């Protein structure tokens, strides 16, 4: 049975800045260490990455692998989420999760809408707790976004709102950096 929900809110930055922060994978295991202390790319095929990531939850640290797909300029999909190693007890044995995150500008163009669509494909016996799962996933997403926004706000105070020059520097690593620069340009 499929339970779908959306999480839509405004974030106070430019789309280019929001996407750059997302593609800046070097911060995942540090800024978000409280939730996810390890992030490792296992393989790459075009804009698709196979990722292994560990998550902390209720005193446990568990790993999972998934496919993360970038659809330039500002869409991010995650699917094929599996526990790692495959035999550990995990909700991913019984619930298939797929997420679709898009960033787009507000009508005034000054801020960004974060639009997340989630699909949980679950057995009937889990259906009664679908809203609990929804709340947990939504809460985690919002807490992580809050950490990202603190980073974006500090950078805006130091370097100016929407300033992503340090992300664009030749030496700076970003996931799918060439595609990002092609779409947003060096003057973003």
């Amino acid at each position: 049975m499929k339970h779908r929900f959306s999480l839509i809110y405004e974030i106070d930055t430019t789309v280019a800045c929001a996407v750059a922060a997302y593609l800046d994978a070097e911060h995942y295991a540090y800024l978000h260490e409280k939730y996810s202390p390890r992030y490792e790319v296992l393989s790459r095929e075009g804009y698709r990455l196979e990722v292994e990531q560990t998550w902390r939850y209720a005193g446990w640290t568990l790993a999972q692998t998934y496919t993360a797909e970038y659809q330039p300029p500002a869409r991010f999909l995650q699917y094929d989420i599996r526990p790692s190693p495959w035999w550990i007890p995990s909700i991913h044995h019984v619930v298939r999760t797929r997420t679709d995150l898009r960033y787009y500008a507000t009508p005034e163009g000054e801020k960004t809408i974060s639009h997340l669509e989630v699909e949980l494909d679950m057995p009937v016996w889990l259906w009664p707790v679908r809203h609990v799962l929804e709340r947990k996933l939504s809460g985690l997403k919002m807490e992580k976004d809050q950490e990202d926004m603190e980073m974006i706000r500090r950078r805006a105070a130091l370097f100016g709102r929407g300033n992503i020059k340090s992300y664009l520097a030749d030496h700076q690593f970003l996931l799918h950096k060439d595609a990002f620069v092609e779409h947003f340009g060096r003057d973003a």
Partner: protein
Amino acid sequence: MTQRSGGGAVEEGAGEHDSVPVAELAENRPNVYVLSSGAKVLVFRRGGQITAFGDVCPHMGGDLGEGSYSCETGTLACPWHGYRFCIDDGRFVENPNERSMALLRVPSKHYRPDRQPSYRLRPVPFAIRGERVHFEPERHR
């Protein structure tokens, strides 16, 4: 001057020169102070040596006052990306992501890892007079 963390007295409006008693500096951890100018300074006391740096990570601007310090290596890691710096001289020591994402670090049109700059923590000038560390005004901005 207001001490933000590191244990010790809170001092306000130190006047022309911000200063802190040497004895107040904790060993082997960052002592974070907000000077009367509003600038934040990280002061380290390690062995007989005292060093002081600004709080802005030269990589992306992370708040180094929230970073994690290793007594064993004498290094401070930025809380945003884990970039590690030596607190003896401020030099960049390591980007731990180079190991974890080695697979993706191949040069491309817009990614040139060979052009890595020489990151360095920004030193905050100070002088020890009597039993106090005096920070020079304005120049630490």
